[in-house]
Structure formats: structure tokens, C-alpha cells
């Protein structure tokens, strides 16, 4: 049937032009030296060598991982707690809580980064430093220090995405039939046992989903640090992420070969990390099932 092909063709036509071709060209470019103007020159694996021996690249890998962990891991725990509370039958103002906790997600990353750049500025009078002061702590240079920048950026990631993850967990909790809990209660299972043997295993696919999204998203972190740091985004190293490193190579230093090599390395990282966390998380599930079997 011809119309079948016809109807699915727009996606493939656009994909071949602006998707597939650029990807293949990236792979090609990763082995060339090119400044965007003069002819390309084949350099073998030199670009990869340059990137992999650049301490700034490894700094950006380190930054990306630290901010990824700080920004997303706590969401898993807090998100599940929030979803659990929002799922209580007798909870009042449910809709209010749901809407407000979700609201940060609708703000753009740029807007979030700008608001946080003001909340977390270097000045002693910034909101963040004022709150530290209330606890008798010294002010922190949020925009320039090694940990200050990372914590501020992780917090904005947390703030923007927690509602999103909570909603997904809530959907997961609502998919668990209530009579399972009723049966467990009749059998004398405690609330904690119910959480451990009913909620967690059945919530597992939803947790896997968010862990997967978070990992992939965290590795691609770009807008938040770039906008948060403003003027110094591509000159300072405290919060430079892998994608920022790539962007800087390409569009600030006109070194498109090494930038493409970085892109290829990033994709390998994403594939490996995604595979590892799928393996680990499914491992946890298996252990749990065995535990439940005993």
C-alpha cells in the first residue's frame, strides 16, 4: 500500500536531511582537522588524543558527573516520598500540592538559571548567603567557587525537575491496585513491609524510567550552567560540562574536529552509562524479587 509509505515518509525525509547526514558527517569530522574555513585535513585519531589528554575535558567530565549526581539522585528519594504522600486517600488540598510542586517544570531552563543566578550570587546579601548567615555559616562564592557553582546548579536542576519525577512516581503508585494493600493488611503485613514488598517492586519500572531520563539528561547538561555563569560561562572551569566543552571547542575556538571527537566520546559515555544503570537497576529488582520469594 503506497499511502502507508507516503504517510510515514515526512519523518524519514527530514531525518535523512537534518538528522542522519549530520550524524555521519560528525563521525567523519571527528577524524579531520578543520577550522570551518580552510580545507579539512585528515589527522587520524589525533582529535581524540587531544581531547582525551586535555585536563579541561576531564574536568568537564568530572563536573558533569558530580552535578548529575547531586542534581538527580536526591530527586529519586524526595520524589518518591512526595508521590507517596500525594497518593494518600485522606489527603486534603491534593490538587493544590500537585499543581504547586509541578509548577517549576513549566519555567524554561534559561528562566530558572537566571533566577538562581540572582538567588545564588557571590554577594553577601544574596538570598542563599543570607540563609547561610542565619545558620552562622560564611558566605559562599556561588558563581565562582568549585563547589558553590556545582551546588547552585544542582539545586536548580533539582528544583525544576522534582515535580516532573513526582508526577511520574504518582502515576506509578496509582497504577498499583488498592486491594493488594488491603490483602496485605489482612495478612498482617506492616506499612513498611507493604512499602518494601508491594510498592517498591511495582514502582520499579517507573523508577527505571526516571533514572534513565535523569542519567541521559544529566550528561547533556548545558543551558543551566551556561546561563547561570553568563559572561564567564566558557572561560571558567568550575561548572564546565561536557557539552559546554564541546560548544566552546566548536563555536568559540573554531576547532570543529576536536569538538566532533568530543561529541563522539559523549555519545559513547551516554551509551555506556545508560547500559550500566539499566543493568544495575534491573539487578536491584532481581535481588528484591528473590528476597520476596523467601
Amino acid at each position, binding site marked *: 500500500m503506497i*499511502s502507508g509509505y507516503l504517510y510515514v515518509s515526512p519523518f524519514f525525509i527530514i531525518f535523512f536531511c537534518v538528522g542522519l547526514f549530520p550524524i555521519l558527517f560528525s563521525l567523519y569530522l571527528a577524524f579531520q582537522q578543520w577550522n570551518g574555513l580552510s580545507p579539512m585535513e585528515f589527522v587520524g585519531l589525533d582529535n581524540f588524543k587531544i581531547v582525551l589528554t586535555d585536563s579541561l575535558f576531564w574536568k568537564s567530565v568530572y563536573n558533569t558527573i558530580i552535578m548529575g549526581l547531586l542534581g538527580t539522585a536526591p530527586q529519586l528519594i524526595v520524589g518518591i516520598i512526595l508521590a507517596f504522600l500525594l497518593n494518600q486517600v485522606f489527603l486534603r488540598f491534593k490538587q493544590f500540592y500537585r499543581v504547586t510542586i509541578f509548577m517549576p517544570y513549566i519555567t524554561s531552563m534559561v528562566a530558572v538559571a537566571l533566577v538562581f543566578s540572582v538567588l545564588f550570587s557571590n554577594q553577601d546579601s544574596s538570598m542563599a548567603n543570607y540563609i547561610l548567615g542565619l545558620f552562622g555559616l560564611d558566605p559562599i562564592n556561588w558563581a565562582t567557587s568549585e563547589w558553590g557553582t556545582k551546588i547552585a546548579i544542582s539545586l536548580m536542576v533539582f528544583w525544576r525537575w522534582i515535580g516532573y519525577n513526582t508526577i511520574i512516581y504518582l502515576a506509578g503508585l496509582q497504577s498499583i491496585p488498592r486491594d493488594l494493600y488491603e490483602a496485605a493488611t489482612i495478612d498482617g503485613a506492616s506499612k513498611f513491609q507493604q512499602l518494601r514488598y508491594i510498592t517498591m517492586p511495582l514502582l520499579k519500572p517507573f523508577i527505571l524510567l526516571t533514572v534513565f531520563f535523569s542519567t541521559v539528561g544529566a550528561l547533556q547538561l548545558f543551558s543551566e550552567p551556561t546561563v547561570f555563569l553568563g559572561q564567564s560561562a566558557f572561560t571558567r572551569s568550575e561548572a564546565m560540562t561536557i557539552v559546554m566543552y564541546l560548544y566552546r571547542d566548536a563555536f568559540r575556538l573554531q576547532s570543529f574536529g576536536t569538538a566532533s571527537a568530543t561529541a563522539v566520546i559523549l555519545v559513547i559515555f551516554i551509551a555506556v552509562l545508560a547500559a550500566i544503570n539499566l543493568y544495575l537497576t534491573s539487578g536491584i529488582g532481581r535481588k528484591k524479587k528473590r528476597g520476596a520469594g523467601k
Partner: protein
Amino acid sequence: MKEVGSKKFSFSKILMYGFLTLASLLSLFPFYWMFVMATRPSAAYNSIPPTLTPGNMLVENFQKVLQQIDFFGAMWNSLILCVVVTIVVLLISSLAGFAFAKFKFPGKNILFIAILLTMIIPPQLGLIPQYFLIAKAGLLDTLQGVMILSFLNPLGIFLMRQYISGSISDELIEAAKLDGASNFKIYWKIVLPIILPAFATLGIIVFTSVWGEFLWQFTVLRDPEMYTIQVALASLNNTFKVDYGMLMSGVFWATIPLVIIFLLFNKLFIASITEGAVKS
């Protein structure tokens, strides 16, 4: 016994409401604070403790924003961008979803899997060649250059296929065919009206993601005249001495329309997340 039990119950209840209320307040605070800063002079920022009540510079701060960036032009560019992308994605996705759900043709499953596989390609991989491609086509600093990448939406095709195979029976299609309706007529007259609710969900997903996208817009748009609101806002922070009142005023006015739309349609927004994420 009974009293102890009920006390324990109310304690955990207080804890629960306390935690949820704290989470709500922390979620709302940056919005409120953005408003406060947008109404205060930059100097208010130096006060300790920080000012928490609105001032009277709402208009003045916004006038300063207008001196820095073409705020309305940028909002308009973002709006055009999102509307066009949303409409195109809805059409491409529903046509392809219809074909995948109801047609039989050789290679159907392979093609569908190929589309799903494109979802896992990180967008940064093609960034540099895409930039040169757009440059070669003379589309730098144009909205068309920004748009074209967003037309690719594998998730949309997936969702539409799911929705169409779940909500439209094969008998209905067959009956229409017996009446002599062409495939496109069936799509237009029968499929489209039925899948309108799914359009709302997918539309919200596409619109919000294009509205907030930054990396590609930032790469393609260099001319301030062509800035979208995201790129324009980011440019406000790109000076050594930032006027915080002005900066927050820009962010506030760019955010408030979204907040209003969200509050009006919050159920749809929240449903779109579970539809979009959980179904895949």
C-alpha cells in the same frame, strides 16, 4: 490506648502536611521572589535581610528590559516558532501514527523501530554539521533554521500510533473504505476528530519543549533581531554588571504567560507528562 493511637496518627499527619507545604512553598518561592525583584531597584539587592515585599518599580524595570532587548519581538518569535512546530509535528505524527496503526505494508515494523531508535541519539552528536548545513542553506538567524530540527519528533509518532490503535476500531476504517472513502479522507474526516484529545497532550509536550529549548536556538540565532525569548533573556545576563531588577523583570514577564496558561490547563499539563513519559 485509643488516645495514644490517634495522637500518633495526628503527629504523622502534621509531618505529612508540613512536608508537603514546605515543598509547595519552596516550589513557589522563586516565582514570588522573581516578582519581588522585578518591582525593586537593583540597589534593594544589597539590603540584609533581603527584601521580601514588592516595590513600585514594576514598570520602570520593564522599561529597562525594553532598552536592552526587543522583548515583544523575541516573545513573538518564540510564539511563531512553537505554533508552527507544534502544528507540523501534530500533522506528521498523526499521519505516520495512522499508517503504523492501521495500514499493512512491507517493512512497517522495521520502519517503526527505526523511528524509535532515533529517540536515543543525543542531539549534540549532529550539532556541528547541522550548524553548517543550516548555514549553507542560508538559514542562520532565521526561525526556519531553528524549526526544522524540531519537526523530528519520534515520541509524537509513537504516542499517535498508540492512541489511534487504541481508540479507532478496524471495523470503522473498513466501513469507511467500503463507502469509497480515500485513505486521506478517512484520516481527515474520521481519524482527526477522534484523536483531538491526544493532540492536546502531544501539543503541550511539543510546545513547552520547543519554547524552552536553548542550545540549538543559541547556536543558530546570533542576530538580536531574530532572538527568541530564551536567547534574549540569556543575553541579559551576559554583561559584567547585571541590573538584577531589570533581569528579573525580563524573566518575570516572559514567565507569567506560561504560568497563567499552566494554571488554566494544569490537568492537561500534568496528564501530558504521564502520557508522554510513562507510555513510552
